[in-house]
């Protein structure tokens, strides 16, 4: 049985004057899933979140959360959603303890209920040693945890996180994702924007927005099977060698190499199926790269988005 739909957008559009920030975006997010929303800066990610949270009124189209219309039933939606904005907006003068209590009271919690929820979240986020510290004095990772705990005080059914890991160190990032998985397993729906591909890979569903339009939406594995990502008679190769940048210049000139991109110590190539590994090795030897480790790979999500972006640019050009 498919899970119930928690968030549904139908041709959601937002125009600011003549500029269309979000252009007819449609997608659905199932209850309990982690929806990763990706796209370059200024592509409209935050605008979509703000419309879903009722902060912005859609110019056209509709969106529903748990069956409530975001434009007309904003007050019914508010208790159901949590929102963690880009800047982890906390009250800097208040301690972590006071911030948590404030957000709890804001959502009508009081007395024993407030204390119980407070204790739960402190335990979950390990904030205990920092409770009496002012928010201004917390490091990025702890501010982020505190902001998340604040947005969870009222046990929302849907949590929107706008770039929750921007400017956070890798350990804190991983720990945040562990928490997100835990919430998801408890049935909470998570809507996360991010720039990190490794985070996108961990989402149950991803949507990619480019130039105000939703280009693609689906499960990461399905997206990697898209024909546009895997053109007929091609294969993807990972080439690990020394002096990757030199190698990149060389292979880009070769017939049969369609795209070449650097990934850390290696490069990812999209080549004609007929291109042989020996030919590649020989060509690399000509630029004095004597040893290269070549193996076939499946496309990554980044490959998917690069292919889709190139395709969009080609279509509009």
């Amino acid at each position, binding site marked *: 049985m498919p899970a119930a739909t928690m968030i549904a957008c139908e041709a959601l559009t937002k125009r*600011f004057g003549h500029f269309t920030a979000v252009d007819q975006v449609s997608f659905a997010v199932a209850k309990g899933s982690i929806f990763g929303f990706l796209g370059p800066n200024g592509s409209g990610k935050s605008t979509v979140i*703000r419309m879903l*949270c*009722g*902060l*912005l*009124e859609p110019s056209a189209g509709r969106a529903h959360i748990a069956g409530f219309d975001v434009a007309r039933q*904003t*007050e019914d939606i*508010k*208790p159901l*959603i949590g*929102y963690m*904005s*880009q*800047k982890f*907006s*906390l*009250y*800097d*003068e*208040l301690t972590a303890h*006071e911030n948590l209590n*404030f*957000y709890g*009271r*804001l*959502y*009508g919690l009081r007395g024993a209920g407030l204390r119980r929820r407070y204790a739960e979240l402190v335990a979950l986020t390990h904030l205990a040693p920092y409770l009496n510290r002012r928010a201004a004095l917390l490091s990025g990772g702890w501010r982020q945890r505190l902001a998340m705990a*604040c*947005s969870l005080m009222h046990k929302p059914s849907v949590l929107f996180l706008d770039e929750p890991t921007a400017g956070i160190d890798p350990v804190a990032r991983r720990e945040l994702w562990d928490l997100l998985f835990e919430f998801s397993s408890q049935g909470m729906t998570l809507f996360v924007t991010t720039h990190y591909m490794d985070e996108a890979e961990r989402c149950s569903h991803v949507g990619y927005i480019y130039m105000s339009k939703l280009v693609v939406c689906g499960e990461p594995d399905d997206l990697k099977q898209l024909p546009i990502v895997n053109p007929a008679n091609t294969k993807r190769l990972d080439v690990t060698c020394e002096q990757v940048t030199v190698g990149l210049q060389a292979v880009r000139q070769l017939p049969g190499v369609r795209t070449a991109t650097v990934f850390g110590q290696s490069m990812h190539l999209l080549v004609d199926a007929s291109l042989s590994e020996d030919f590649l090795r020989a060509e690399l030897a000509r630029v004095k790269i004597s040893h290269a480790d070549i193996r076939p790979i499946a496309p990554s999500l980044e490959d998917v988005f690069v292919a889709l972006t190139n395709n969009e640019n080609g279509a509009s050009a």
Partner: protein
Amino acid sequence: MKTPFRGFTAILLKEFTVIFRDPTTLFFMFFPPLIQIIAFGYALDNDVKHMATVVLNQDRTAESRQWVEKFVDTQTFRVVAEVNSVDELSSAIRAGKAYVGLQIPPDFTRNLHAGRGAQVQVLIDGSSSTIALQALQTSMGLALRESLTTVMREARRTEMPIEVRPQILYNPTMKSANFFVPGVMGIALQIATVFATALSLVRERERGTLENLLVAPLSRWGFMLGKLTPYLLISMTMATCIFLVARWVFGIPIRGDVRALFLATFLYVFTMLSLGLLISSRAQNHMQALQMTMALLLPAVFFSGFIFPIETMPKFFQWISTLIPATYFIGLMRAIMLRGASVAEYWFSFAVLAAMGAGLFSLCVIRFRQRIA
């Protein structure tokens, strides 16, 4: 669960904690008004006394020197120098060494004894009209009094044909602090209150915490009241301090009902705090909030009757003054403190302040959009 004021307690508690956590806010609410009160109470005094005077006595007789003494005895003039020529006299005034030049011509005593009109020349620096007016009135009054005494002696009368017996009510000593301090209370309170609320909401907008509040299920009334109430309590405390300073430091009488005084203050402070919130809900950043506040508060300094009487203004400015809350508050302060007026006698001013307060507060609740665009 949808009470009309939901979120009120949460906002109220948070706002109080934030205010007391950051003492600069409190300092800037309390300090400037007290400084203003003290400045206006002590330093700014338009009871002009002992103004610098240079004397050119060309007569050099006992009588003429006696006349100079009579000028000094009025307490208005103080001789700073004696000069020997008309040029020196006028250059002393031009150089700012004296406000007044007193010239007694060589034939003064002779004319006086002969019963011909004896003349004394008084040169007055008109650059400051307050000082000039005082010098003019005192010297004219002196001449008139001395002339009358002479005429009456010659006519052998002991009583004046007509006598005016003025009695200054409510401020018998004509102390200017009695006039200024109630006025400066209005101006000082409005600056502290409007700035406090104008900045409080803008701060949330700039930090991004406003978005968190907007996605929460709190009512606009609860939100605005929660924002306003802490500042209302602080402002009332501040007003009490100002009253104590006015009463015990400057000896300004409080003749009317203290409850009327506090009712007027409450309505005024509420109105000004609402104005601050309204500014705050329009302004996008600190700078805009400060500029809007200055633009809205400046007219009150000129047109509220704080210094210049409203009655003498052109009709257009009188009309502007009726739109300024400080006009009513300052009027009420003078009426209640100095004249002991009652609420019933001034019900109109109370009603106007109440209406302005209710109107502005409702406006900022209604105009406050729970969306960011």
